[in-house]
């Protein structure tokens, strides 16, 4: 059974989606950096709570170095978290240690670079057949071929028998990335962790892969954690949105609500920076020359405070917790309020000295 813990009590579970598929509580990952005797810790991910329901696409948005890929690797079981818990269908991952293979077949990953994630000496279908052999042992040889053809068709590579014979060098970037998804689908997953799956693809190809994700979610019932730095594409595919900054989730909520009513100043900055060919406004954008924070031994306090135009005294001392400011919509900011006017433009403030 799922126990709805205190950390989630302020989010009533969506009746349409039911029980969570995957849940992370207080997920934390620190890396030791520096020399042999260094005690410095890089806080890649700090205290991240996240819930993914069946049949939904959740987007995790953040700049490079915000810890979003580390979250994906933690959820995929590649790293062992420093602290925190991952719960899959009500069972903690630590209790599944002996049965990780079944977890791995249920939670699959798609990587950013389709050029280096397929082995060039094997046919592109090699990964699919391997997954089928490992995770679907009930299938015979003929069934495997049939299944592989079905999967390849599912990701839009037709004619299937032809594509199964191809080598990676014969495929374009978009086709390779479709193979990435096919490989993930071969295990019959509930959840695919897609780490920047379209950022290396050309614009005209990108849309096809984004549409593939929504398609697979609607038709096959696969959930997605879509990790990206591109908030516009996140809006396009995702039902819910999480914004990460310096290893922490700073805002989360239904995608449209977050975009229409961004509460955290970082989300507001991110939104104002998105290049949008369809916008007619040519207002002078804020110039933000400050650098992302160092997350080595960051200490207490809001990590966005060095760039924040609304900084107050408490921000230096207390790390803001996520607070519910609108229905299902939470933000980690001391200043943000439910009735805060959203249309405040971030103004250029005299820069503060970095720590």
């Amino acid at each position: 059974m799922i126990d709805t813990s205190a950390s989630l009590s302020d989010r009533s579970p969506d009746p349409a989606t039911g029980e969570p598929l995957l849940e992370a509580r207080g997920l934390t990952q620190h890396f030791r950096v520096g020399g042999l005797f260094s005690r410095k810790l890089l806080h890649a991910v700090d205290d991240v709570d996240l819930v993914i329901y069946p049949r939904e696409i959740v987007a995790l948005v953040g700049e490079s170095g915000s810890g979003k890929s580390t979250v994906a690797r933690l959820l995929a079981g590649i790293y062992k978290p420093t602290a925190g818990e991952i719960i899959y269908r009500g069972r903690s991952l630590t209790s599944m240690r002996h049965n990780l293979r079944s977890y791995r077949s249920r939670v699959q990953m798609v990587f950013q670079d389709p050029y280096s994630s397929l082995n060039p000496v094997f046919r592109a279908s090699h990964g699919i057949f391997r997954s089928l052999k490992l995770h679907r042992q009930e299938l015979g040889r003929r069934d495997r071929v049939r299944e592989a053809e079905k999967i390849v068709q599912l990701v839009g590579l037709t004619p299937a028998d032809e594509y199964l014979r191809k080598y990676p060098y014969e495929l374009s970037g978009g086709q390779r990335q479709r193979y990435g998804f096919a490989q993930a689908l071969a295990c019959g997953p509930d959840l695919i962790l897609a780490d920047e799956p379209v950022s290396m693809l050309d614009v005209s190809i990108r849309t096809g892969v984004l549409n593939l994700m929504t398609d697979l979610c609607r038709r096959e019932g696969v959930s997605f954690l879509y990790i990206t730095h591109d908030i516009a594409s996140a809006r396009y595919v995702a039902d819910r949105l999480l914004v990460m900054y310096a290893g922490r989730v700073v805002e989360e909520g239904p995608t449209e609500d977050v975009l229409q009513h961004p509460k955290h100043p970082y989300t507001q900055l991110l939104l104002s920076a998105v290049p949008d060919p369809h916008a007619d406004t040519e207002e002078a954008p804020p110039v933000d020359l400050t650098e992302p924070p160092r997350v080595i031994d960051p200490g207490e306090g809001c990590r966005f405070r060095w760039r924040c135009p609304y900084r107050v005294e408490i921000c230096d001392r207390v790390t803001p917790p996520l607070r519910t400011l609108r229905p299902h919509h939470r933000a980690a900011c001391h200043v943000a309020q439910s009735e805060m006017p959203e249309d405040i433009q971030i103004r250029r403030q005299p820069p503060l000295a970095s720590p």
Partner: protein
Amino acid sequence: MSAADIAVTDRPGFPPVLLDIRDLSVEYAGESAAVTAVDRVSLQVGRGEFLGIVGESGCGKSTLLFAIARLLQPPAEIVGGDVVFKGQNLIHMREKQLRHLRWRDYSVVMQSAMNALNPVMTIGGQLKDAMKAHGRVSRRDARLRGASVLQLVGIDPVHLDSFPHQLSGGMRQRAMIAMALVFTPDLIIMDEPTSALDVVAQRSLMVQIKQLQSEFGFTVIFVTHDMALVGRYSDRLAIMYAGQIVELDTTRAIFKDPKHPYTQGLLAAYPSVHGPKQELKGIPGRPPDLRFPPSGCRFHPRCPHVMNVCPQEEPDLYAPRGTDLVRCFLYDRRVMNDRHLSQPLRSEP
């Protein structure tokens, strides 16, 4: 042809021409046949203009830029055309002559600052290197000028003594721009300088380039795959597809009313954060393999408006609005008045 033979014609209503590219073609020597990566590209860039060159990977945009700067390495080779820069034809210049122009009159900002900066040399040392290449400069002057260009791009002069790995990605990219500015050249060519940065850093770098440009008045040629990014800052856009320019016009006109089906498809492929959510279609198919370019119009296998004429003849550049150029038969009166030629080849999806 000597430079004196080439009369540069200024277009009325536009800034005086600084760079005039005529029928420039670049080939890569292949195993069997040469591959034409840049196919008879003609462009005029005015003084103080910000020109964006947009295209997908493999469309020849970086090759074009390297050809303009005369930085191509074999197997790539310029097989035809002229690049007239400030009245001199760069194509016929020897390395020795080019050396005087580089940095001083035009400079190039490379795509990945990580690889373009020397990892074992301080930023200040690398700036000094560029200065020393153009005459004697005292250590003190080099430092002073280095400090001032770093300040221009918003980097604290203490970083003169920093090594590239000590700077963040955004700072490295800005340091590259600082190096390009050492002599305040007339032309700065930029090859996707922001592609390694995230949106916030990207945006602030673009704003900064624009501010520097209005301060010093140099010309920018900005090559990118991201039309949405450059759209806010460029005066004109050249859209490239399969080695050719398919559309050339002011940025505003292209965004408001894209004429070429490829440009239309590109613009429609960007999801937006504002306004109603719309389903995006993208462009079916993939960019052609330039070893085997499609017959006729190179976009015809992916084009939603393909007509009888498209696979048979190569379209020219037409000017449906007057100032613009579009490589599409839809704007060719001869074709559009001929019922057979303009017959659609397949029904629209």
